[in-house]
């Protein structure tokens, strides 16, 4: 087998290492938004991503369970307010995901 083939095979095989948790479109959107800002609240993310409250809540719970995002629930003017931010682990995972995708897709 030529060397270049084995090289491209390696790159293709790296698809298997892609983080499936981030790869899901809705979660990828959430991660991308939280990557470019320091933090955002639930309503802002809902408006930006176009996800329903239930959908967003379910995806953010999964990302929180993986340690990728931090969710802080507080009360502002006696109303519940949820702030979300990317953790260091989430930042690293997202960067790695981007690098892998760029390697595979060029």
């Amino acid at each position, binding site marked *: 087998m030529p060397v270049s083939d084995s090289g491209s095979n390696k790159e293709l095989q790296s698809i298997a290492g892609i983080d499936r948790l981030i790869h899901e479109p809705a979660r990828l959107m959430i991660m*991308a*938004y939280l*990557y*470019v*800002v*320091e*933090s*955002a*609240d*639930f*309503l*802002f*993310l*809902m*408006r*930006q991503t176009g996800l329903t*409250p239930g959908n967003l809540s379910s995806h953010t719970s999964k990302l929180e369970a993986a340690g990728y995002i931090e969710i802080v629930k507080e009360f*502002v*003017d006696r*109303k*519940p*307010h*949820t*702030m979300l931010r990317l953790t260091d682990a989430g930042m690293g995972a997202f960067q790695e995901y*981007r690098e892998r*995708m*760029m390697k595979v897709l060029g």
Partner: protein
Amino acid sequence: MTQNINLKEIEKKAYRDSQQDGLMEVMMGLILMTFGGFFYSPVFAFYILLIVFAGRIVEFIRRRYTHPRIGFVKFHKDDSKDALTGVFLFEVTVIVIMFTLISLFGNVKDYSQWVDWAPLFFGMILVGPFAHAQSRSGNVRYTGYAILSVILGLFFSLTEFASGSTGLILYLVLMGGFLFISGLFIFAMFLRRYPLATTGGA
């Protein structure tokens, strides 16, 4: 590369959406109008207070009207630091250019020449914050404000008035008034477009 561009676009959209209430225009317009309108008045102290508390006033109104409608977002501090450095360098460049032009074509020691060209000076100074807002948000309305600011500045610098400072005062009141009214209009449209969300901030 494509991924990088997309992230930049996402950031721009987030910034644009966070500024869509028009409150920055309202505050900027109010500051310019107060500066022009009360320059020779004892109420000028009010202007200082307005500048000191401008950020807090906008934040207070946003907490009551903007955040419950579109949510709240906090941007990375490093981004705004770099941008503010850029705006500062631009303002220094404008001051140097104005100084050089007056030195070459006029008399630097003649106070009246500085007063005559003050509207254009302010008009160019305002380009800095507008260019910053345009580059961060990608919103063309800021380019419009920057162009209007320079054109009005040039107009009031070239027009002769009985009193030297009249041109500057008229420029500040007109430009400020335009921004204030535009901001109020954008804010009214924003309130109409985004009725209070029933889901709250859960």
